[in-house]
């Protein structure tokens, strides 16, 4: 095989010969094998496709996505948007998608925090902390996630009922109905404050970028924190106060046989989240540890020799280099959390897979059901890897 055209040496390659219709010409062989392989793949796909069409006709299974508009009639226990069984399949699938995202997003955040802490603990000078976190990582990574989910779910189901609920702190109840937490009554003012916070975040980031550009131009450092304080704290507070500063705590309390009020994490959601976070944290810990260890000690020492304070050493020298090693494998862990959240179906949490599965059982339209699942996950996977690739490109080493 000769060199590809990327190689500069190919510039000196002999001029292209005309294709000779002979087996000894490499290009003829290449085209021949491609035609053979593509031919085999296409004929196999065609064979499977024609079988499928035939089988669908024989079994009188409808095709197409027309069923999405029909009444679903399937009850969903927890939902972020209004839903009842008379809604359409499309709405039910939307609920499932939101439930998947609810687990994935919260899981990614918690697993990152927890995993980073354990990864740092593995490098601690303290023998107990080091050994304990190493044991945790080893054990948790050697057990199937599905087993862990079933285990947590079994533990939650074995908890006492609401009347004998575990009550570790005021307003926190853990029972076989799930975890109850105190919350506030959500009103328009809170949503407005949240929007103001997000706008403030964007403004702060933009200001910081400008300040940095100016500092590079004239060498004068500019403080970002006053702007951050105004945008991230004062602005949301003002928005909240402008609508009358509503604050009504919503503390769960036992009424009769069940709890009322408060924020509820259902046993299914709680078991799924706990299992996913603890499992993935074991992998993230190893990634973080490897990333920190990948920064040569000389870098740290050189930074200290320049007179940087310990915080600045970490922030300006160690972390930027460690992140370069950490980000690519972290991306695949985030993708894993999202894909593994599909195990929800085993413990009865109604995510997209669970609802699509019920849909395909009710309508008999297996191909469409599985196509929906695959499409959803492909979209999520591509979005996450797209974002992480962008982030990775930002922090990557700038070479000549």
């Amino acid at each position, binding site marked *: 095989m000769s060199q590809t055209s990327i190689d500069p040496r190919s510039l000196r390659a002999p001029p292209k010969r005309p294709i000779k219709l002979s087996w000894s010409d490499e290009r003829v062989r290449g085209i021949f094998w491609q035609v053979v392989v593509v031919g085999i793949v296409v004929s196999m796909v065609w064979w499977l496709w024609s079988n499928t069409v035939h*089988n669908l006709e024989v079994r009188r299974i409808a095709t197409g996505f027309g069923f999405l508009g029909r009444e679903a009639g399937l009850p969903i226990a927890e939902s972020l948007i209004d839903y009842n069984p008379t809604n359409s399949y499309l709405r039910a699938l939307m609920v499932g998608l939101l439930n998947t995202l609810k687990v994935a997003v919260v899981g990614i955040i918690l697993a990152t925090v927890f995993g980073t802490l354990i990864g740092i603990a593995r490098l601690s000078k*303290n023998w*107990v902390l080091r050994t304990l976190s190493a044991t945790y990582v080893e054990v948790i990574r050697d057990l*199937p996630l599905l087993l862990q989910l079933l285990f947590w779910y079994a533990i939650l*189901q074995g908890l006492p009922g609401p009347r004998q609920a575990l009550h570790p702190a005021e307003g926190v109840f853990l029972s076989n109905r799930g975890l109850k937490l105190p919350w506030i009554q959500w009103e328009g003012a809170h949503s407005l404050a949240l929007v103001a916070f997000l706008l403030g975040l964007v403004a702060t980031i933009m200001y910081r970028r400008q300040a940095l550009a100016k500092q590079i131009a004239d060498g004068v450092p500019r403080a970002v924190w006053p702007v951050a304080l105004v945008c991230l704290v004062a602005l949301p507070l003002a928005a909240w106060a402008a609508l009358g500063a509503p604050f009504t705590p919503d503390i769960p309390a036992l009424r009769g046989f069940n709890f009322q009020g408060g924020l509820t994490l259902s046993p299914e959601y709680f078991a799924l989240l706990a299992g996913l976070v603890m499992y993935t944290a074991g992998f993230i810990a190893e990634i973080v540890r490897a990333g920190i260890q990948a920064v040569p000690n000389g870098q740290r020492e050189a930074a200290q020799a320049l007179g940087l304070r310990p915080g600045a050493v970490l922030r300006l020298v160690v972390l930027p280099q460690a992140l370069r090693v950490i980000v690519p494998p972290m991306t695949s862990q985030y993708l894993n959390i999202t894909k593994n959240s599909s195990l929800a179906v085993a413990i009865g949490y109604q995510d997209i*897979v669970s609802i699509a599965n019920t849909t395909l059982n009710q309508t008999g339209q297996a191909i469409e059901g599985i196509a929906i699942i695959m499409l959803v996950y492909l979209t999520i996977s591509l979005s996450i890897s797209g974002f992480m690739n962008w982030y990775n490109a930002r922090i990557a080493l700038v070479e000549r």
Partner: protein
Amino acid sequence: MSDAAIPTPARPAPITLVGPIAWVRNNLFSGWISGLISLVLLFLIVKWALGFIEWGVINAVWSVPNNQTQACRDLRGTGACWAVITEKHRFILFGTYPYEEQWRAFLSILIFSGLFIVSAMRSFWRKELALVWIGALTAIGVLMWGGVLGLNYVPQERWGGLVITLILATFGLAFAFPLSILVALGRRSRLPAIKALCVIYVELIRGVPLISLLFMASVMFPLFLPEGMNIDKLLRAQIAIILFAGAYLAEVVRGGLQTLPRGQYEAADALGLSYWKKTGFIVLPQALRLVIPPLVNTFIGFFKDTSLVLIIGIFDLLTAGKTAIIEPAWQGFGIEVYLTVGFIYFCFCFAMSRYSQNLEAELNRHRVR
């Protein structure tokens, strides 16, 4: 004049740096925060360990007569009910395989384990290993199906437990590995059509969860096949697992192909080797050697992932464990069963992970100065 140099007085000996006391000072109490962490953690570890011993050993019930689980229920969670394991261990290990014939399943598990151990030893890494694999897998097939050599025939629907987990993992590995090498080579090929097919295959499979492939295998495969042709459920799941593992392994192999210095490819070209000779004699032996540790890690992940067949109702180890506690008498003893099943998975995965670490150290020995 006495210019004789006056020796400076010797400095005091440093505080002891060796010995158990120094070790404790350095590793447990190097500062007051560290000391506090040590004390709190040690306290918690001792407390939990004592609690676990009390639950799992002291208060535990080890056996009950005739499925009368009242003794276990009376504990109300203060002690483990290991009676469920005593009663159901054969079911968890062998599923619904006929009781008198379970020695055959047991023997198959032993052959599997022997096969893994032999394959792990570097002195056996020769061409003959392929023959050992073929022989061992044939022997397992004969043992499990029977119908020859005076063994009774056991239909595949009755297989279950640990054997199914091992079958799914081993056959998955045996077929996915060659597939992954072909796909990895295809992805680095200069032929655009072949490269595109391999990229689509890998990215499509890696972008979706294994469950969706298993669902596909269980509900869509029957639609794909011509009328009258039917593939067994276990085989369908096996195919899904092979396709899944093939895509992930292909990425690991591709990593090895990319790390191999370009000079190796060029030298092979300069010798006038054909593509397959170059690949077989120069590229693959070096590239695969580079990726053995990550390959073993992928195998571990993939061994654990076979447990997902629970969702489509195939009777592997985890499904057997979950089914064992469906019976009303044994309901509610999930923790004991899952701890036991987890211990079995742990033994296999821990052995593989230790092996991968040792192998990595051994293969990198030439790099250590």
